[in-house]
């Protein structure tokens, strides 16, 4: 078995569209999961009755079930109760729900470390709880939680490969389809290895850089 660059170049358009799907799904799911996290962490910190317990249950449920089964449940199971989503949006929804649980925990940790002094100061200024959260708590918490939030994002990019299991043609989906039809393994496996390592390592390196920048005021 030899590595043929020609073959790889011929497959490039398909692979590129697969890579774009991977990036689109990941970007949408990261953005939406942060929204989920903001709402979830807000509910937890404000101790909203009932909703707070629901968020706790949601986080525990997501953490203790396999992402693949969550994905199957969204894609195959939800249509039975009248919620039919396309392949693409099923993937986005499953990844959002999954990462949303981790973003909730990340942000909750950040909010918890903001400290009661600021909350009291906010109340003294006449801010209500929602105003405190929006104007004081969250801006500070996001800064504290940003590294862990972005790490969750990096994991999401990696785990977006799961969507190929329901048939979405992302990078993994395209590469393994080609492998099956052309009986050439070596080139496609190289693409996957290089592709994901590049994505993940670039992202985690930028996270580290950002972490370094954010810590600048606290150094020395």
């Amino acid at each position: 078995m030899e590595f043929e660059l020609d073959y790889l170049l011929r497959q490039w358009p398909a692979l590129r569209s697969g890579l774009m799907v991977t990036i689109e799904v990941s970007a949408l799911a990261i953005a939406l999961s942060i929204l989920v996290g903001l709402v979830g962490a807000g509910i937890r910190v404000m101790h909203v009755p009932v909703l707070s317990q629901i968020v706790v249950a949601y986080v525990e449920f997501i953490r203790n079930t396999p992402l693949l089964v969550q994905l199957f449940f969204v894609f195959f199971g939800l249509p039975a109760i009248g919620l039919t989503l396309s392949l693409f949006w099923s993937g986005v929804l499953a990844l959002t729900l999954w990462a949303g649980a981790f973003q909730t925990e990340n942000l909750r940790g950040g909010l918890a470390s903001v400290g009661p002094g600021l909350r009291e100061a906010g109340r003294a200024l006449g801010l209500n709880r929602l105003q405190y959260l929006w104007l004081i708590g969250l801006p500070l918490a996001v800064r504290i939680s940003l590294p862990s939030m972005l790490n969750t994002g990096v994991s999401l990019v990696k785990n977006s490969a799961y969507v190929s299991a329901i048939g979405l043609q992302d990078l993994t989906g395209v590469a393994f389809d080609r492998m099956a039809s052309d009986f050439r393994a070596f080139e496609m496996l190289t693409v996957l290895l290089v592709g994901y390592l590049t994505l993940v390592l670039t992202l985690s390196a930028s996270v580290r850089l950002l972490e370094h920048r954010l810590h600048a005021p606290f150094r020395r």
Partner: protein
Amino acid sequence: MTHGMALIAENWQLLLLGLRATINLAFVTLIASTILGVLLGTLATVRAWQVRWLIALYVEVFRDIPLIVTIFTIFFGAPYLGVPLEPFPAVALGLSLWGAANGAEIVRGGIQAIPDGQREAARALGLHAWKIYLLVLWPQALRNVLPAFTGLLALIVQSTSLGSLVGVTEFLKAGGLIIERSTVMQGINPAFEVYGFVLLVYFTICSVLTAFSRWLELRLVARGGAQTVRAPDTARL
């Protein structure tokens, strides 16, 4: 809804078969990742930087490549190397290589959490390098890493569901088969109930393991153990 529940009850044998395969797969993976993880994690604490660098590379690669890609690569790639693998060993191998990377990180953390004085004292007593590990470092590290390894087991149980994609009839696949059969033969699609049930069973198993891991950690802290080693984040799955 009631139909789905009846279907699950009717097919309990198939589901039990699947559950057994899931447990077998998790067990084999746990053993292999522990052995390989202890080996790699120990080597990650030696003085030679070349060795440490190689281990760090291994850990990084297997944690950054999607697990689904690792398993597909082994299952579909093995025939090209002239050693076709059955689904079960292929998945067990893929999961173990990934589990070993996580196990190595835990073991490395567990050994490094032991105060330096222990190693120095052992050396001052004239103990051989391997005896320092065997008699001094490993027994103490064992306490440190237990909670994290229990957490890892929960992750392993979750990741065995990937076996369904290459043809291991584990728990998720068993659920899929029930849905397929009912859709073809009775024209009813019970995917919501069956996959819901599958989710609940995984949830039960993994929450017990996670709770046990937390309990071990609390107990360790209460007894004034060295800093505990944190379980690998589920987000790294």
